[in-house]
C-alpha cells in the first residue's frame, strides 16, 4: 500500500462539480440498467429453452 497521499486543497466548486457529474452518471447508469434488464427479460421469454 502507498503512503498517505497529500490531500488536495479543498475547493467548494470542485466538490459541487464532482458531486453533480457523479450524480448524473449514476442516473444514466441506473436508467441504462433498468432498460437492459427489461430487454433481457423480454429476450429470455422469446428464446426457447
Amino acid at each position: 500500500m502507498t503512503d498517505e497521499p497529500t490531500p488536495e486543497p479543498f475547493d467548494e466548486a470542485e466538490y459541487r462539480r464532482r458531486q453533480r457529474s457523479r450524480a448524473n452518471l449514476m442516473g444514466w447508469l441506473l436508467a441504462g440498467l433498468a432498460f437492459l434488464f427489461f430487454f433481457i427479460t423480454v429476450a429470455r421469454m422469446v428464446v426457447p429453452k
Partner: protein
Amino acid sequence: MAQSLTHGAMTLPADWRDLFALTKPRVMSLVVFTALCGLLAAPGPMHPVLAFSSILAIALGAGASGALNQWYEAGLDAKMKRTANRPLPAGRLDPQTALHFGVGLAAFSVFLMLFAANWQAAALLAVSILFYVLVYTMWLKPRTPQNIVIGGAAGAFPPLIGWVAATGTIAPLPVLLFLLIFLWTPPHFWALALFVRSDYAAAGIPMMPVVAGERATRRQILFYAIIMAAAAIAPWVLGLAGALYGWTAILLSAAFVLLSVPVGLRTAGEGDRMQPEKRLFAFSIAYLFILFGAVVADHLWPL
C-alpha cells in the same frame, strides 16, 4: 457514495474518470474482443440482447479484476514509472473506494452473466476473476518468475466464457483458443518485461528478466513462441476450423516466430534501444486480434 481525498471534515468525491481508469480499459478491449469472438464462433444463434449482455458482463468482470489488481498493487505501482500516475499511487483515489468499486463490479458482472446467459458461464466468469485476483495478483506475481505463465490462464478465459455463454457447454475449439492465449501470454509479457526491466526491478516484482536474467528470458520467449504457433495451427489440423483460419494462423504464427528469433538469440548491450523486443510486443497484440478475427470469419464465411 464512495469518497476520496479527505480534507479536514470534508471530502472530495472520487472523479468517475479515475474509477474508469481503475478498470484498465486498454486491457479490457482485448478481453471484450476475444470473448466476442468466442461467442460468435459458437454454433447456433444467440439473441442479440443476451449476447450483448454476456459480453458486457465479461467486460465488467475484467474491469473488476483490473480494479482489484490496482487496489492490491498500489504500493508497487508507485515505484514504477509506467504505473506511478494511476489513480491510487497518484493519490487521486483512496484504497477503500477502489476496493468497494472492484468487489461491487465483480459481484454485479457475475449476476448479470447468470441473468443473461447461464450458470456455467457465470461460474467460469467468477473463477476467472478469483483466479486473476487471488492466484495471479496476490499469490504468484510477488513470488515467482513463472507468474506470467500460470497467471496467463486468467486472460485466456474470455473466449471460453463467450462460447459457454452461447452454448452452455465446453467444446474442443474454445479450449484450444484458451490454450492459444495461455501460450501467447509469456512471449507477449516477457518482451515487454525486457524493455521495462528496470521498472520491475525497482518494484521488486520477480519478473523473468529480473530473476533468471535476460538470456534465459530470451530463450523462453522463443520456446513459447514455437509451441504457441503449434497451438494456433492445431484447430485447423484437428478439423475444428477451416482453411481461412488455417492459412491465417500459419502466416501469422510464422511471422511471430520469425520476430521471436532475433529476440531469442541476441544479447542487448548497454544503451540498447530494444527495437526487436518492442517490435515483437507490438506485433503480438495485432497477432491475437487478427487470429481471433479469423476464427469468426472462418465460422461465418467458410472457404
